């Protein structure tokens, strides 16, 4: 044998590295390392790390030591000694030996963590469970990359930084193509190298037993799994599947349940139906003008009466008692933090850089173990201002930034669908940028889910406003929300009818959400639509007694914009689900069908019809307009008069009741004048009617940040 002179021993790095072609190489071959007794190798700080047919390469911290030289002579072939860094050699030894120390000890030993910080994190872990690495990330002590490196050291696996700046290998495409996208996504693993039958993968959690079993079953060649960071995996997935993700977020529902998608506003059958109906109506109006108008008027009046009776019956229970699910302080106290599942929070942001600080504060206030909190800020690629603002902000570890490629439709549901592809939570919830959720809301939702049973797919929290006293519009808006979330939705819950979800704060089971095709990106009230689809799929929604405070729209034009989108969305939702009325009847059942018609069709119906009747009434009193007498024969006149005088009062009164019930005493008197507010709604409804024809999926963006009160004061 020959032995290279120690004085000329070259330095060698034992850390895994990438080649210029992007291949990832671990310089240590475990089989070669086994040539030396592991105990001896550690004590002498030597490591045989590679070999050819003739030469064994041995790394040593002190190759000149006599003991080292004596040892290598025993190997029986030509040995080339190399000099190695003590830490790298030790890490390599660990990799070979599988010498997994405790995470914290290793992190401290690696100099990434101070003992005091470790102690605090361990205390937190003892309190609420969870993984120490995630806890350290969420405490801002370690980055996810740091954690991955420590885990790599702990497990003896090579660590790989997927975004170290080197170009990736061309041939990797074939590796990606070996499995479908959802394989990589669901197992949080990505291919990083492939050479012949040897496949190198990087995983967020390579030690996951099921992962190894899956890989063994699927791949026939040699598979090595390296450790990498969770965000690296997500980013690599997004980088590779960017277009596919975008397509999924836009077309998943369309692909899975095309009949439930608002991509096409009207089906062919509906177009034919409406054309025939329109023609018949025109014909009748020409031939039998008076009678036709009376029939139409009678139908409309009956519709009003039916809606009035429906709402009265719906409101009775919530006005009598608290029907929403209440998570009592005792129940919350009994929640074992260690039993809490991961929770994903979506916050779609567009042109909302200004509210970022408050949003982050509100999120930080959420009383939920941060290691299981998976907040995703969903940004749009063509919104540089918000992206820049987020980039400038030091985000806590539990907040991810997801940037969506710029593409139509530019809707909130599309952003959420995109985010859902990387959601880690058992549950997901959406908050708007200006939302201030009850800090206990996630826990309350968990309690509600656990109380309710498996048939509950969604828990809807209540919405209200922090700037309710800003002006008359915000006061009316607040009473309307009090009625909607305090009486109407709980009433629908008790009546076991479909619940059109509110725009935010709807907590959903992730598996259920995925099962039903997530949000419809073409529906501008995707929340209402989702509520109906949940019901169709056999899931219930319950209301939880927890508030999210939002910013009430205080500007009339802005309000009309927002409201017109809602009304348009309701019309959209109705048209979509009424493509097959008989099937819908079967899917929803009589009760659900009735509730659907009353809520989804009834809401825009009243907004659109109200001004017509108000104008007719006014004209009758001003000029005794003959048409009024013509379309209102006496029997119909009394019906109409009843609707006008009693129906309007009843709904205004219900607004008062709702404000009182919520404790918004200062708003009760303003609710008396709610009919004026309905006039404004009719303006928005008219706009919606025009838009449903011209731009059915256009998302009218609501401008936030117009409140005259500091949001900060409400985050506490």
């Amino acid at each position, binding site marked *: 044998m020959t032995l290279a002179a120690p004085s000329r021993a070259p330095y060698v790095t034992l850390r895994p590295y990438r080649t210029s072609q992007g291949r990832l190489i671990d310089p240590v071959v475990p089989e070669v390392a086994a040539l030396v007794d592991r105990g001896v190798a550690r004590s002498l700080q030597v490591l045989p790390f590679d070999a050819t047919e003739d030469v064994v390469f041995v790394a040593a911290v002190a190759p000149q030591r006599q003991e080292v030289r004596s040892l290598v002579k025993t190997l029986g072939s030509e040995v080339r000694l190399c000099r190695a860094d003590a830490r790298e050699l030790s890490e390599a030894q660990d990799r070979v030996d599988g010498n997994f120390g405790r995470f914290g000890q290793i992190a401290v030993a690696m100099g990434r963590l101070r003992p005091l910080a470790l102690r605090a994190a361990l205390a937190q872990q003892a309190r609420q469970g969870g993984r120490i690495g995630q806890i350290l990330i969420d405490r801002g002590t370690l980055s996810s990359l740091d954690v991955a490196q420590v885990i790599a050291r702990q497990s003896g696996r090579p660590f790989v930084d997927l975004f170290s700046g080197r170009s990736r290998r061309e041939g990797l495409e074939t590796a990606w193509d070996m499995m479908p996208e959802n394989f990589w996504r669901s197992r949080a693993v990505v291919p990083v190298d492939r050479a012949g039958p040897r496949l190198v993968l990087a995983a967020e959690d390579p030690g996951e037993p099921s992962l190894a079993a899956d890989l063994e079953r699927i791949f026939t060649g040699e598979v090595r799994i390296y450790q990498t960071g969770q965000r690296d995996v997500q980013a690599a997935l997004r980088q590779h599947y960017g277009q596919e993700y975008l397509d999924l977020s836009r077309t998943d529902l369309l692909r899975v349940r095309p009949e439930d998608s608002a991509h096409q506003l009207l089906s062919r059958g509906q177009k034919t139906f409406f054309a025939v109906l329109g023609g018949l109506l025109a014909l009748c109006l020409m031939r039998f003008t008076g009678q036709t108008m009376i029939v139409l008027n009678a139908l409309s009046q009956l519709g009003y009466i039916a809606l009035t009776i429906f709402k009265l019956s719906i409101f009775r229970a919530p006005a009598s008692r608290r029907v929403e699910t209440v998570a009592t302080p005792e129940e919350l106290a009994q929640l074992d933090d260690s039993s809490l599942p991961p929770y994903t929070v979506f916050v779609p942001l567009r042109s909302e850089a200004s509210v970022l600080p408050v949003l982050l504060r509100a999120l930080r206030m959420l009383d939920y173990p941060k290691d299981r909190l998976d907040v995703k800020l969903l940004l749009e690629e063509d919104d540089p201002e918000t992206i820049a603002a987020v980039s400038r902000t030091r985000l806590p570890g539990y907040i991810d930034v997801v940037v969506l490629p710029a593409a139509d439709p530019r809707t909130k549901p599309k952003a959420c669908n995109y985010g859902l592809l990387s959601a880690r939570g058992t549950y997901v919830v959406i908050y708007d940028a200006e939302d201030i959720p009850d800090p206990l809301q996630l826990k309350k939702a968990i309690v509600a889910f656990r109380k309710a049973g498996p048939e509950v797919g969604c828990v809807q929290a209540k919405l209200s406003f922090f700037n309710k006293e800003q002006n008359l519009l915000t006061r009316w808006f607040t009473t309307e929300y009090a009625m909607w979330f305090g009486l109407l939705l709980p009433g629908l819950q008790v009546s076991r009818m479909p619940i059109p979800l509110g725009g935010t704060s709807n907590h959903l089971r992730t598996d259920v959400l995925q099962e039903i095709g997530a949000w419809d990106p073409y529906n501008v009230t995707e929340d209402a639509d989702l509520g109906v689809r949940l019901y169709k799929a056999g899931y219930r929604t319950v209301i939880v007694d927890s508030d999210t*405070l939002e910013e009430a729209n205080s500007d009339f034009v802005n309000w009309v914009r927002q409201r017109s989108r809602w009304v348009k969305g309701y019309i959209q939702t109705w048209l979509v689900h009424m493509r097959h009325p008989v099937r819908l009847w079967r899917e929803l059942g009589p009760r659900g069908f009735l509730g659907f018609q009353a809520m989804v069709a009834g809401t825009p119906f009243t907004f659109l019809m109200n001004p017509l009747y108000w104008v007719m009434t006014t004209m009758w009193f001003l000029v005794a307009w003959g048409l009024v007498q013509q379309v209102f024969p006496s029997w119909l006149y009394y019906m109409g008069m009843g609707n006008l005088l009693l129906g309007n009062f009843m709904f205004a*009164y219900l607004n*008062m009741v709702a404000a009182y019930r*919520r404790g918004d005493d*200062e708003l*009760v008197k303003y609710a008396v004048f709610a009919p004026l507010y309905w006039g404004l709604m009719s303006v928005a409804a008219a706009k919606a009617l025009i838009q449903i024809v011209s731009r059915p999926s256009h998302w009218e963006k609501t401008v936030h940040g117009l409140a005259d009160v500091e949001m900060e004061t409400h985050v506490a």
Partner: protein
Amino acid sequence: MHLMQRESGPWPVGAQSVAPVKAPPEAAPLALVATALNLAAGLYINLALSYTKSDAFSRVANAFYVLYSRTPHLAAVGFVWNPLPSLLELLLVPFKAFWPPLVTSGVAGVVWSAVSGGLSVYLLIAILAEFRLGRAYRIAAGLLFAANPLILFYGAIGMTEDMLIATMLGTLLGVLRYLGTGSLIRLIGAAVWLAVGFGIRYEAAPFGVFVGLSLAVALHWRGVPWKRIESALLILLAPLVYVSGLWLYLNWMIMKNPLFFMDGTYSNAAFSAYGSYGYPLLGQLKGHPLDTLAYVAGMTLLFWPVIPAGLIALARLCGAQRDGRLLLIFAVSAVPALQFALLERGLSSGVERYFMYYIPLGFLLLSLLAAEARTRHRGILLAALALVLALGDIGTGYAVLTSPILGHGDRSDLIGIVQGKPTPQYVARDKVVAYLDEHPHLTVLTDSAYAYPIIVRVRNPRQLIIDSDADFESILENPRGRVDDFLLPVISAGDVPDAVTRAWPGITSGKRPWAQLVESFRGGGTYDLFRILPNAP
């Protein structure tokens, strides 16, 4: 107390959640007994003694016009008067085909007043249960209330007093339960009862105001913030205010006078102006508040137990005990208080039925005081109390039958009924009906205020042009060729003239040459039939 608790921070707690409050089990059976009692008495009085009270009968007639007049329309119910009784009676009017007395004798009104009497008992028992009084006492009190002569009489003859009392008790029950539990639905229930009450009699308005004030004070005593009190009052009173406004509007729309109900043709004011009340004492009260007060206070003798009960309750309120429930119960005296205001201005007949609200007031006050009494001999106390209530009932009967002042109003009718004397038959009316049935080709214009017993009895009511018809005024002004005859009651002095006489003064004395008397129907009143000649306008 938990009524107005709010969490600090931006998530205030709203309505309280309470288990539904159920009426005690004996309430419904006793209500049925009371209804049956009222109905039996009503049918006896109405059918056996042929007694009908004109106010009650005319309400049934109003309902009749809606379906059977020349131009059937809902407005014929007469929205200028509180329309709910007639609207309720409208539901029974179509059944006249099976049993004509429902309309021809006004039994439809009897049915509803009997039901109201039963409902009053039901609600009274529910309130007594709210006071946590025992079942035996509740049953005794319920029966004694139902058996009170005035309650029974007005529950039996189709009048609206028992109906209003029922809504008052409903209101009180709701507000008392709200005070007890903080339950929003109870407050809403009270508000609905108030609004329904206004649909029956406008005295519900002052009652509502009194209840509102009492509730405000009661809540204030409990330390409830003013904002909360204000919103509670809005919830309680908004329906009443709205219905009142609606009613004023309907008065304006129909009669071009929003206060027509108060100062219109057949209002108390009009009757008063014509001297219809013809009761010397009333003249002495006008402009004399102290005398008026004495009169109103004296009417408490209609149910004497209210006097000691009221004095004790007042003493307790003036003392240390700030019990809002006492205040609320006193709100029942809003109607007598309104009478004070009207009598002092000479705008009321001051009859006994306007003061019968002292009866439920007495029952409630005594019961609450007994409920709060701290004694080891509770059973004896309640038994004694039941005896007092029974004596109160006897006192009512004695008062209205023996005292011309306390019985001012329907005393003579009551005496006749007690003695089982049939009411004198209105022969003239029957003659008119027979005449019209024999002359079905005639078209006759008449004022329904006086002719309603005829209108509901003729075979073809559509041969009559009545004041609820849209073209009534026009035909009255220009009758030539549009109507064959005018049917006029012969009005006694002090009565408000009918519409024809008001439009054509002197017609009965021959001052209108185009109107020729063709028939005069006499007996228990007089009706004249005038033929419209070709020279008529």
